[in-house]
Structure formats: structure tokens, C-alpha cells
């Protein structure tokens, strides 16, 4: 078995002795040729991990291995990793070809060889004719690709990307997401990508690590994170969820009953987690797991069934939703429900009476202590 391209072991960074660590015992390994993302809210320590891997920050503890060898004592200009910076950091004093050729020049590659490689990589990013352009004459998407080409031409073991799409507008970001994935597949290089945008992480990655307050909450495939979150943070952060807090009144087997603070009684699954009757717990249900119906009979098999009134209609084409205020719950309890794409409920209007229901298996319960 070959060593993974990048492996971090119990990586820790403390900026001040008395402050909580910015990165706290993070461990992960990235197999060769895969696309690994670190997803987390702003300030959780993503950039700090990147900077340690790139060599700009000294870890307070732990180890970083590239292809099985520790690189802690290797300075950043000698590490076989390259980084695409958040604001790209193209060299404004050089043209595109000089930017891309910079690393090769530093390696002492011969001039004709540099010209050939630069031409080659420009071809691969689909911009063969921009070599002589100045950096400030490029569009946002072109700069993006040049910044990636500048690293890829050096054929690094690992490419680090620090929110590279952050500065682009929404439309271009959507486009670059697909493009970036295609580029990664074409070059076959290992990508480590950090972002706070879950759709970027979910769409592009082979594996995603969800990070919160310096720690990894869960590492897994996009499907794992979405359908089988292991912590309340992941359940709340990845995708949209309806979320309730309350007290567990009964546990039988994998199923439990919860009295929410808003006054609803719900059934949920504990998925093997240790929750006992009397505990405080949190329950997450995805909007698309909730079925709307005209009457109770249509919701057969759902452990949770509520009757309510449509309080808001959120029309968004195929992703349309309604908010339902259940009967007998407080005014601030609203449940978001995805409308089926069949269009069966297209006629739903504000104030209509509906039934909603979901199975207990689709309602994940977590002990609440960890969530505070």
C-alpha cells in the first residue's frame, strides 16, 4: 500500500498560550489523486491548517507528512505543495507567461523548456493565447485559471486551494465549480480545497471534512455528511434542516419520543447514539424528508404526523418550499417543507390547511450537551 499524498497527525496550532487553539488535534489523510475539502464556518481554522501544510506557519504540535515523509523541517519554498491563495496573489509586475514560468525559472529549467511547459499548461486551462497579457487585463475566471496553472506547471504532489472562488460572483462561481473539478480530473493532482460554502465542497469533493472551532467534526463523502451526520453541528451545517430542541420522554430501541420546547411531540431515530429518557436532545429533519398531504390518510407509515397552516410560500422553481405552522405549537414554530417536484402541491397558498409527515428514521436525534 502506498502512502497517502498528504497526511496530518494530531495537528495543533496555538497562537497564544492562553487562547484556545485555532487548530486542535486535527488528523486526516488524503489519498493520491483525490479531491479533499475542508468545510467550516468563518474563523474555524481552515486557513491555519493550509498555512501549516504550505509551511508558512509552524505547528504547535503534530506532524505533516507528504508521501509518507515528514515535512516539518522543510521550508515553504522546498515543499512539494503549492497553494492557490484566497485572492490568487498573481504577480502584478509580470505578464501571464512570466507568472506561470516563475516557479520553473526558480528551479533553473531551461528557457525553451519553460516556454514549452507554459504553452502546454495554458492550452490545458483553455487559454492558449493570453501568455503576453498583463494580469490586470484578465477577467476573474481567467485569473483563477492562471493561478491554478501557475501551480500545476510545477507538478506538485498536493495542490492547496484556499477559498479560491470566494472573490467571484455567483454565476462564475457555479461555472468554476464544474471547471475546477474537471481540471483536477485532467491533471490527476491531489487537491485540498477549503471553503465555507457547502455546495462547493459537496459538488467537487471525493471526501469532505467538516470543521468547527479548530476540530474536525466528521470526515466522509458528501452523501455521508448529508444523510448520515454524526454530530449535531454537521447536521445543522450541511444542508438545510428543521431543528428542534427538547426533552426525551421515551426511548424504545432505536426510536425515541421527544417533547420539544415549542410543545410538539416528535418521534426520531437515535442511530446508535447514547440517548436516554429524560436527556435533552436535538432533532434535525430535512425539508425534503417531510411529505405534505391533503389529509392524514395519505401519510400512512409516517411516525410523525402534524396538521397545520401554510404561513409562507417560498417559490423557487423546482426547489420551492412552504413553511407550515403546526396546530397546537407556539407561533414561532415553523416547519420548512419541500414541495414535491411533481407539482401536485403547486396550488398551495398561504393560509391553506395541510397535513405534513415524516418517518422517525429521517429525523436524527443528538444528545444536546455536545451542541452548546
Amino acid at each position: 500500500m502506498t502512502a497517502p499524498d498528504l497526511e496530518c497527525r494530531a495537528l495543533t496550532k496555538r497562537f497564544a498560550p492562553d487562547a484556545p487553539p485555532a487548530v486542535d488535534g486535527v488528523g486526516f489523510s488524503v489519498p493520491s489523486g483525490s479531491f479533499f475539502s475542508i468545510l467550516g464556518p468563518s474563523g474555524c481554522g481552515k486557513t491555519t491548517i493550509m498555512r501549516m501544510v504550505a509551511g508558512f506557519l509552524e505547528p504547535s504540535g503534530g506532524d505533516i507528512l507528504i508521501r509518507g515523509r515528514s515535512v516539518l523541517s522543510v521550508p515553504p519554498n522546498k515543499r512539494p505543495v503549492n497553494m492557490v491563495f484566497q485572492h490568487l496573489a498573481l504577480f502584478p509586475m509580470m505578464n501571464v507567461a512570466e507568472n506561470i514560468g516563475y516557479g520553473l525559472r526558480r528551479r533553473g529549467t531551461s528557457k525553451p523548456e519553460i516556454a514549452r511547459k507554459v504553452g502546454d499548461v495554458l492550452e490545458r486551462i483553455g487559454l492558449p493565447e493570453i501568455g503576453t497579457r498583463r494580469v490586470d487585463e484578465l477577467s476573474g475566471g481567467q485569473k483563477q485559471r492562471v493561478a491554478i496553472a501557475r501551480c500545476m506547471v510545477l507538478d506538485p504532489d498536493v495542490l492547496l486551494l484556499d477559498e479560491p472562488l470566494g472573490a467571484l460572483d455567483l454565476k462564475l462561481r457555479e461555472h468554476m465549480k464544474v471547471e475546477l473539478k474537471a481540471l483536477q480530473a485532467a491533471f490527476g493532482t491531489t487537491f485540498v480545497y477549503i471553503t465555507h460554502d457547502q455546495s462547493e465542497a459537496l459538488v467537487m469533493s471525493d471526501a469532505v471534512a467538516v470543521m468547527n472551532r479548530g476540530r474536525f467534526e466528521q470526515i466522509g463523502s458528501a452523501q455521508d455528511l448529508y444523510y448520515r451526520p454524526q454530530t449535531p453541528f454537521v447536521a445543522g451545517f450541511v444542508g438545510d434542516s428543521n431543528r428542534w430542541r427538547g426533552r426525551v420522554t421515551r426511548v424504545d430501541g432505536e426510536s425515541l419520543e421527544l417533547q420539544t420546547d415549542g410543545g410538539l411531540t416528535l418521534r426520531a431515530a437515535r442511530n446508535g447514539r447514547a440517548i436516554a429518557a429524560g436527556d435533552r436532545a436535538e432533532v434535525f429533519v430535512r425539508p425534503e424528508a417531510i411529505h405534505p398531504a391533503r389529509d392524514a390518510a395519505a401519510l400512512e407509515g409516517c411516525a410523525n404526523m402534524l396538521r397545520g397552516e401554510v404561513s409562507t410560500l417560498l417559490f423557487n422553481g423546482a426547489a420551492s418550499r412552504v413553511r407550515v405552522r403546526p396546530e397546537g405549537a407556539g407561533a414561532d414554530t415553523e416547519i420548512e417543507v419541500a414541495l414535491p417536484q411533481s407539482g401536485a402541491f403547486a396550488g398551495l397558498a398561504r393560509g391553506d390547511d395541510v397535513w405534513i409527515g415524516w418517518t422517525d428514521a429521517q429525523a436524527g436525534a443528538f444528545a444536546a450537551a455536545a451542541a452548546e
Partner: protein
Amino acid sequence: MTGTSARLGFVLLLAPAALWLTLLIVIPHIDLFLVSLRERIGVGQYTTSFANYGTFLDEPLYLMTFARTAIMSVLATALTLLIGFPVAYYIAKLARGRTRSVLFLLCLVPFWVSELVRTFGWMILLRETGLVSSLLQWAGLAAGPVELLYNDAAIMVGLVYTSMLFMVVPLITTLDSLDDAVIEAGYDLGGSAPSILREIVIPHAMPGIVSGCIVVFMLSLGNYLTPIMLGGKDSLWFTELIYSQFILRFNWELGAAFGFVLLLLSSVIVWGTLRLTGQTLRETMG
């Protein structure tokens, strides 16, 4: 209607600057140039000729002083850049928060006292019975009192000291505008410190370097007090010649010619520097 009032506003806004330029710079210079073209052929009798410029070219002392002043000024500028660049780099890129403001203030402090007092400060340090001389004797490095004043080195020290701020400020401004990530990207792509300095930092700082150098060069060239007070008998400065022609000899014609030669020199050197470094005046002046 709006066009006319906008134009009127523009004229009114520009008027003070235009007046200032015409009254204080253009008119005196034209007059000075006319004076420099006068040749005295008898008491109160003048003709127009280049005779004053001829005198300048014929007299070795004038030419020598002129060349010395130019070379020393270039040297002072280079030294100021050499010392100022690391200082500016440290302040702009490495120092953070309070340290940064304190260091910047330290560069400014010498300008709270007048140039005269500042130069006297150097005299107190460098004279025979001064601090440096005593220190050398105390350390056993010198047998008797050493005179460190009244030579070219003393002038150089004074010039560099006086000009430092004018070099450091534009450098800090341009270096500040260089994104740290760009420097880091240089390291990340395999650059070493010298290559990053050469290929990234210096090209980026070029407008600041050029504008700092131009200001320092002009200040040194036109300096009067420092060379007079710190320099010796042999270290004449060209401004001293101009002063003596105007004030001591009442030879305004020759003094004016000297002034114009100096103006020509600084213009040529500034133009040459801009050409050499591929900068335009517009870029440099922001």
C-alpha cells in the same frame, strides 16, 4: 448652463495654484534666466550673451565643484536608498500594530527640530571634543582626540540623515500596497529571499524608489546648511558658489547662470533616472 458653471468652478479652484506657480516659480525663473544672459561691459552697461555660462565652463573650480556636488548628491541618494529600504520594508511588512507606529514616528522625530539644530547635533557628536571622539578614546581605539567633522564623510552623514524621511515615506507607501500573499506566493512557488526581492518586491516598489530618489537627490543638490556646517574648506558645495555670487560678490549675472546650470543638471538627472528605470513621471507621482 451647467457646463459653464462647471468650467467656472474649475477655473476658480485652479486659480490659487496657477497664481502660486506663476508668481513664485515661473516669473522669478524667467527673470533669473534673463539676468543670467546679461553681460556687464561697463558701469551700468549690459549686452545679451552667454558669457556667464562661458565663465562657468572656463573656470576649473566652478566645474569641479559642480561635478563634486552632483556626484556626492547621487552618492547620498544611493546611500539613503540602501539604508532606507530595509527600514521601510521592516516598517511596512514586518512590524505590526504599536511597533509600527512607533518606528514610523521615530523616522519623523528629527523633523520636529529645525535643520540648523539637527546639524548642530551632528557637530556635537562628531567634533574633536565630541561624543564619538571621546568614546573612541575611552575604548582605546584612538590615542588622542579625533576630528570627524569638516570632511566629505561628515557631509554625507548629514545629507543622508536629513533625507531619510523623504525616502522612507514613499517606500513605505508602495511596499504597504504589496499584498503579503504575493510575497508568500513567491516562496510557495520555490523563490528564495533574494530572488523574491529582485523579481517581486523591487519591481513593485519601483515607483516609490524612483520618487524617493528624485526627492532626496534634489534636496541634497540644493542643500546649503549641511555642507557649510559639516564640510571643510575643501568640500565646497555648488549652492555655496551661488550664494557667494549673489550675496558676497553682488555678481547676480553669474549667480543666476549658476542657478540655471543647477536646474538643468537636476532636470537631466531626473529625466535620465525615469528613462533608465522605465517609469513615467505620472506613475511615479501617483
